[in-house]
């Protein structure tokens, strides 16, 4: 069931239009990640949703009720801010209870709800602490409890993990996801971290220049990017324009004779030393993209080595389980299903061979 419906939304700051023709349906209890590079309009969309900036066009419906004309305080959409936006003159308990006091909930009910939420976010016992005395992770959880206290129709999270260090970020990421499953709230989360979006979201909307490029499940977005931008943003770090007049490259797929943009991930590139290549390629019936080149650089990446291979004017990135010395002749093979192929001039018409 659609819980939140954004129709033909246009919004911006002053005369500058940031968001253009945004259409998005969020189902009850679903978590959608808004993913995109800095400046693509993710936070602006949250601001428009919360009523902090007016819409130029379009409307927002919550449970089929138009809320786009309502002021921020009447929308029942709460935000967890990037900076947490906790009030430093209040204690943890006062921060969490604020929304309930504003809504004139009975004192006993406020106490019960605050205790329950602080328990859920693992902050029980810190009720009387000033928020300035808490760590980044604890502040983040106070902000989450505060936003959830009034049982909002929709919870929006604006890069909630970006101020945390890497280790805390991993644990809080799972805590938020577990909490969302447990309490079943509908939410939108803004992030520019693709891994965060893949792990946390039920669906991902990829934004580019104020428009949604693609919306789908994490698997769809990752394996079947519908545009060159999505492929690039989702980590397809190798890009070539076909045809290439270079004897090192051969592409064994039936394709139209147009100019093509081909993207693929370094993790999908298999490396063979040229002495063993013929047997391996025969087994795979030579399908896909084959590139002959020499190793230029090999960098240790923890669980693998990142190998830069030069072929003519092109540098291709690949991952390999062991170090390869410079100038080693190698053959790279990318299977057809790992290639994301687009018409070079349009970059959005899909020619995927998946």
């Amino acid at each position, binding site marked *: 069931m659609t819980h939140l419906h954004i129709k033909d939304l246009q919004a911006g700051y002053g005369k500058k239009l940031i968001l253009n023709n945004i259409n998005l349906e969020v189902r009850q209890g679903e978590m959608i990640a808004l993913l995109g590079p800095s400046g693509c309009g993710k936070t602006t969309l949250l601001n428009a949703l*919360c*009523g*902090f900036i007016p819409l130029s066009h379009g409307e927002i419906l919550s449970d089929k009720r138009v809320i786009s004309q309502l*002021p*921020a*305080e*009447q*929308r*029942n*959409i*709460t*935000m967890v*801010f*990037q*900076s947490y*936006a*906790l*009030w*430093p*003159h209040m204690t943890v308990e006062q921060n969490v209870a*604020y*929304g309930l006091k*504003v*809504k004139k909930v009975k004192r006993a009910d406020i106490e019960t709800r605050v205790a329950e939420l602080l328990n859920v976010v693992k902050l029980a016992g810190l009720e009387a602490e000033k928020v300035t005395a808490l760590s980044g992770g604890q502040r983040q959880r106070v902000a989450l409890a*505060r*936003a959830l*206290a*009034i049982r909002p129709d929709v919870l929006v999270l604006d890069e909630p993990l970006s101020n945390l260090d890497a280790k805390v970020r991993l644990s809080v990421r799972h805590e938020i996801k577990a909490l969302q499953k447990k309490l079943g709230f509908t939410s939108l989360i803004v992030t520019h971290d693709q891994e965060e979006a893949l792990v946390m979201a039920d669906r991902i909307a990829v934004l580019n220049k104020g428009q949604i490029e693609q919306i789908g499940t994490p698997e769809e977005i990752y394996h079947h990017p519908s545009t060159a931008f999505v492929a690039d943003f989702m980590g397809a770090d190798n890009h070539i324009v076909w045809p290439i007049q270079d004897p090192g490259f051969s592409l064994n797929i039936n394709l139209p004779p147009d100019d093509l943009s081909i993207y693929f991930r370094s993790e999908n590139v298999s490396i063979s030393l040229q002495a063993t290549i013929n047997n391996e390629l025969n087994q795979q019936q030579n399908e896909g993209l084959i590139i002959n080149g020499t190793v230029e650089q090999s960098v240790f990446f923890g669980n693998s080595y990142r190998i830069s291979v030069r072929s003519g004017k092109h540098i291709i990135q690949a991952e390999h389980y062991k170090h390869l010395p410079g100038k080693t002749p190698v053959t790279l093979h990318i299977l057809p299903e790992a290639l994301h192929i687009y018409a070079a001039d349009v970059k959005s018409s899909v020619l995927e061979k998946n």
Partner: protein
Amino acid sequence: MRQMQSHNLWLVAPAALMVGIFFLYPLCFSLYSAVTLDGGGFTLTHLYKAFDLYSKDMLFTIFIVFVSVSILASLSVTIAALITLSPFRSLVGLLAFLYRLPLFIPFIVTAQMMRTFLAKNGLMNNAFIESGLLTPMETISFLGWGGIIITFVWKQMAFSTLLISGAMAALDDSQIQAARNLGASRFRVLVQIILPQITASIGIAMVLSTVTIMSVLSVPLMIGTGTPTMMTADMAFRVNSYGDYHVANALGLVSYCICGGLAYFYLRQNLKDKGAIS
């Protein structure tokens, strides 16, 4: 190391000398003069005389300062809140421009302007008569304590609003947005989120305004109607009419004690903000 310290001393010496000659020496001399006889020797006679002759004026000064600062605080907070929270951004831009204007007008010009505006046959009453709201017989003069307060508030409002709206602007916008999307009205946001975080700035704006109001001579002379008047007018009178520097300095000492108490608050808050004291 020692040579470096002496270099540092030479660096600050010119500024320290200026402060010494033009501020500390006259201040010390004034305080000394307030508690000594012509031929030397400690006395409290001048202070007794100052209290005996001008205690009513001291109370009047405190009354003017208290009322002016109270009105100033409420108006400045209101204007700063409008600038920070109003959704009508073009009106806010106009307001933000207009409120700054009195900053660039000297006290004596303000006093002269208010004299022609507030008098019985002044601009304000003429406007009321022209618009039919009052007849010439019904007009009253605002010259006196009311006019002094209006003038001080008008002149100081720009300064205090500047400080207070600066403090409001320094707050993270998301703190205000967080309260609003939890259901708080703009007024509630002002009272419960903004004001508790800027009380120190409001206090400082009011302390600095108090010190300014207590040291202005032109306003009580030009807007006041004789007695009671403010202490600055009394000091000018003692010097100009009697050449009595001792009583004038004794009145100065009383003013200084009032301002000094408030300055203590200002300095303490400054140190607290910088983390020197908790």
